[in-house]
């Protein structure tokens, strides 16, 4: 497989139900590799659910049923018998609120690396520092690497979570409204980082703010009550929406 393809996600007839309640209905989309894809849609339409199905995180909840196919680089990750932790390693997650692990800043980033590789402490330190630099937080925390991560500000915590995610060298970054809990400046920092990171990773961004999607997205998926109403390159969807519902959403009539 050519290198260009790494990190492409495709869903085929994807259905997700909580108990009897079906949240995602027959979704067929293709998320292009190494681009920033925004998933937009009104609250409660299933954005988070869709996103978390991509790294099989839904399974840890009770009562979730998933059917259909999710192909990552052509392999169906829903197949049974796969090593789930390998799949999750490929898909970094950035959640709505930052959740630093109950460890020091350094250990937070080293956590994933230690799990997957056996490397000596010198190399580990380098790797951790690189990730912190890449996440744009190194300068702020270089003297307190070994303090508890929960002492950081929310914006810093979110960037730390980003560093933690890229430390295991994923192919895809799944971001679930990563800026909604942050102040405008921290939000901007995260946004910039995502724009930078999309050169190396496929970025899937769930967002509530249309303006953010317009600013950063290359590709847009509009989700409405669990169904994909429209998807396509950003300029097409934003400037020339085909579906009346999409139009209505763009004009703020449904939210």
């Amino acid at each position: 497989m050519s290198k260009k393809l790494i990190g492409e996600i495709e869903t085929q007839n994807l259905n997700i139900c909580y108990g009897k309640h079906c949240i995602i209905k027959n979704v067929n989309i293709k998320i292009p590799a190494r681009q920033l894809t925004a998933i937009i849609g009104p609250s409660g339409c299933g954005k988070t659910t869709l996103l978390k199905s991509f790294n099989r995180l839904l399974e840890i909840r009770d009562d979730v049923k998933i059917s259909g196919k999710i192909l990552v680089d052509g392999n169906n990750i829903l197949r049974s018998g796969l090593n789930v932790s390998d799949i999750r390693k490929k898909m970094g997650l950035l959640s709505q609120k930052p959740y630093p692990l109950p460890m020091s800043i350094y250990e937070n980033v080293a956590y994933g690396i230690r799990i997957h590789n056996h490397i000596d402490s010198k190399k580990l330190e380098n790797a951790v520092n690189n990730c912190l630099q890449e996440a744009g937080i190194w300068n702020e925390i270089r003297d307190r690497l070994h303090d508890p991560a929960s002492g950081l500000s929310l914006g810093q915590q979110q960037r730390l979570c980003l560093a933690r995610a890229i430390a295991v060298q994923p192919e895809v970054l799944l971001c679930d409204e990563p800026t909604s809990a942050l102040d405008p400046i921290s939000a901007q920092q995260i946004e910039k980082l995502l724009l930078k990171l999309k050169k190396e990773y496929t970025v899937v961004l769930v967002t509530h703010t249309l303006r953010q999607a317009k600013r950063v997205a290359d590709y847009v998926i509009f989700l409405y009550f669990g169904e994909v109403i429209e998807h396509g390159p950003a300029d097409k969807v934003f400037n020339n929406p085909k579906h009346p519902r999409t139009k209505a959403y763009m004009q703020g009539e449904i939210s």
Partner: protein
Amino acid sequence: MLIKNGSFDKKWLMDKRKIRDLICTKLMLIITIIVSILFFLIFLILLSKSSLILGSESITDLLFSSNWNPSNGNFGYFPVIVGTIIVTGLSLIIAIPISLLSAIFIAEYAPRKIRKILRPFLDVLAGVPSVVFGLCAFLFLVPLVRDFIAPFFGIESTGLCLFTASITLAVMVFPIIISLCVEAFSSIPLELKEASLSVGATKWETVKKVIFRATAPSIISAILLGFGRAFGETIAVNMVVGGIPKVPSSLFAPTETLPSLIASKYGELMSIPKSESALMFGALVLFIVVLIFNLLGLILLRNAKKRWKL
């Protein structure tokens, strides 16, 4: 007039409410103070009651002499203290891993249905009175140890021994540690687990490195409560430990613990002042150890909390 009357009523009502508020608040304060000085009171009474024996015998003799012979006035607590420590320690060594693993299973691995079924079972186990534990240990464990386990190790035993007592205590401690830990584990936000899982950690790695860490303070206090239960357990131990104040020579030898000693000897010795005082000294030792362990636990908890700002 009407309006005035109404406002008077209202004012009177307000005052009544305020007074009631004041009375109740003060009453609660008084009760709280009394209860929180209760342990000073207990300490003082035990101390004054044991002053007689402390006056006539040196404290090192009492604590470190092995000569226990009340009829001759010899009260060496050493064997009983050793017995208490070994019985409690062994029971916790058995109970802690089993309880933690069970709690992890219930909170993280079991499907919701099974979790729902298991909960009431734990409550029932927690509610079984200690005298019933003792009875069952006597019926089931004692013959088992006497006829199978001890002979397996080539030791002759009546079954009334250190090992039986420890197992009994461990079973009594299970529900305490398990239910507190299950509560702690399930209070962890799902997102924290997701954070660990999404960097590719397995469930067990998440449990080991994240969940145990995040709940360390709760685990510590659960273990402390379990320790308290095991350390102070009287009746169940009394029924199966053998009741011989001797440093046990093997796992299957009879021994005696402090609470059990007090329970079986107090009735018979309370009429002789010196003996009663000696038993009160035993109670005092028990009390002080509980106190020390609680304070140690507190320090441990503080450190764990401070370390990761939980």
